[in-house]
């Protein structure tokens, strides 16, 4: 896959609203995902990140608005066809096939994913082995998936999603529970995947990780998009800080700033040499 032009829109998310009973988990969320980019999706707990992932991957049909990929409305595509369009995802709550081995789990994706029709059973197992080496699971390839630790299950989710040969990969908290070294490894893996032309949408709580990998960050709070842009600019925005740390924190910061300013002012009026 060659790197496509940066201006090409891969995924269009328009005015998405998602209602569960009386609760709007998402409302009026719109943004575009450029092909080849890495979009970080952040927000406090309960802000609707996973719901949005479910809408984009076609698991939920949105109440309002639509997600379009390559001119197709995702809501019209049955779940088992979404990966054939080129969209793959991982689940925050991992879903391995417990009685199959780790290799078989990944091979099933290789058999039925986008390029699955062209792959023999043997080729699918070979592809699975490659992917297990990439995500660092080849040492447990022949163990049943139910034996895996949580971080390894996350790796397995990534390998299964990659086995579908996606153009767009949605990653829902794949780094949760990893230690610092493992996070660095995971980031390296994701960068590598992205370099091969795969567009990434990443939900993650680890701010450091998301800032270092994303080209764009979208911030959700209470189901609404409150900011979008380059990572550093977005994180400096008062709205985002307020969403994460609360309005009282922002007020206190403002109060502190004011005190600081008053002190400075006072210092100017009363020069330091007045002190003993």
């Amino acid at each position, binding site marked *: 896959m060659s790197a496509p032009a940066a201006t090409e829109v891969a995924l269009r998310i328009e005015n998405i609203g998602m209602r569960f009973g009386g609760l709007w988990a998402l409302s009026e969320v719109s943004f575009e995902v450029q092909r080849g980019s890495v979009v970080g999706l952040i927000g406090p707990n309960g802000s609707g990140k996973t719901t949005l992932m479910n809408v984009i991957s076609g698991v939920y049909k949105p109440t309002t608005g639509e997600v379009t990929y390559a001119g197709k409305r995702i809501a019209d595509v049955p779940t088992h066809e979404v*990966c054939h369009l080129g969209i793959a995802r991982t689940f925050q709550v991992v*879903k391995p096939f417990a009685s199959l081995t780790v290799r078989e789990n990944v091979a099933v994706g290789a058999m*039925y994913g986008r390029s699955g029709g062209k792959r023999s059973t043997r080729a699918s197992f070979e592809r699975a082995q490659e992917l297990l080496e990439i995500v660092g699971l080849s040492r447990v390839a022949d163990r049943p998936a139910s034996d895996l630790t949580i971080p390894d299950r996350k790796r397995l989710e990534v390998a299964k999603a990659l086995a579908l040969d996606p153009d767009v990969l949605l990653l829902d908290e794949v780094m949760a529970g990893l230690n610092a070294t493992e996070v660095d490894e995971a980031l390296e893996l994701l960068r590598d995947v992205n370099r091969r032309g795969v567009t990434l949408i990443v939900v993650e709580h680890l701010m450091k990780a998301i800032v270092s990998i994303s080209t764009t960050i979208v911030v959700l709070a209470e189901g609404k998009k409150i900011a979008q842009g380059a990572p550093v600019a977005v994180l400096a925005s008062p709205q985002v800080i307020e969403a994460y740390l609360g309005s009282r924190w922002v007020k206190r910061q403002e109060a502190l700033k004011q005190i600081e300013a008053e002190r400075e002012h006072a210092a100017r009026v009363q020069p330091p040499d007045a002190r003993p």
Partner: protein
Amino acid sequence: MTRPSTVATLRRIGLGGITGSPVAFAVVLVLMALLLAVPFAHNGYVETTFRYILMYATMAYGWNMIGGYTGYVSFGQVAFFGIGAYCSAVLSTMKIDNLFADVALACVVAAAFAILIGLAVLQLKGHYFAIATLGVGLAVTDIVSNLDALGGTGGMNISQVDEAHFSVYYYAMWLVALGAILATYFIARSKLGYAFVAIRENEEAAAVLGINPRRYKIAAWAISATMAGAAGAVFAAANGHLEPSIAFSPDSNIFPIVMALLGGIGTVAGPFIGAVILAGVNELLQRYFVNVHTLFFGAVIVLVVLLLPRGLVWLFGLRGGARAWLKSLTVNKA
């Protein structure tokens, strides 16, 4: 550890993984070869007994495809068996007495019926599916009982070969059973088998990986119906007479399930091993304890579920003897 290379070797010859224990599969093939010799005993009783064992084994393979590999527990397989049986009877009234024709028609009609019913019934899951299939079995029995064209409750007669060539029915059943075993073996090592198992393990996750659950569930059910139908076709021809209570007997519904459970569901060897053991023991009990032999079946179901939830074939792959077995029981309970 030499394990990876062992696994690789087994995979090269197509065993391990979801095909189950290679030792158990070898045992099955050896037993099947030995069963070819049964007619040389020139003992009608022995031949009939083993023909029944092969018949139940075939049906157990049928049940295993939908209940074992795909995880949809069906209590309606007897409908396909009976439909297959009536295919033979109908062909006989048309003066077509050819076992190949019987089996071919039975396979086609049973599979077509499974696809038709499956479009509706396979929308259900778990207990609801099980209950619906039970209903399908009962409904088909009642419909056939009330069809005058099929002889109603009185049934139909099927013309048979003369006594000297009676073993042809035994060999036909043997071939049908071999077909079921080999079909299961080749499906279990193919993409199709992995689609079935993925659906069993987690249907939603299977769909996310590009598997159309509905299509593959219907495929699994059609394959299972084909096996049951083929067994029914040969059974009817060998029996010479067919009526609803024979074609749709509860025994033909429950035995295969218990056999698959005992041998190990979702394995290639399990149904055959379960059928040989259970049908054999049942035959002996029936001879000596006519009135209580059905009690035995109840006891087997309870014991298998409690002590051997993964079936006998699983023991072939178990390392560590009795201690490992006991440990697995406590793990399962936890």
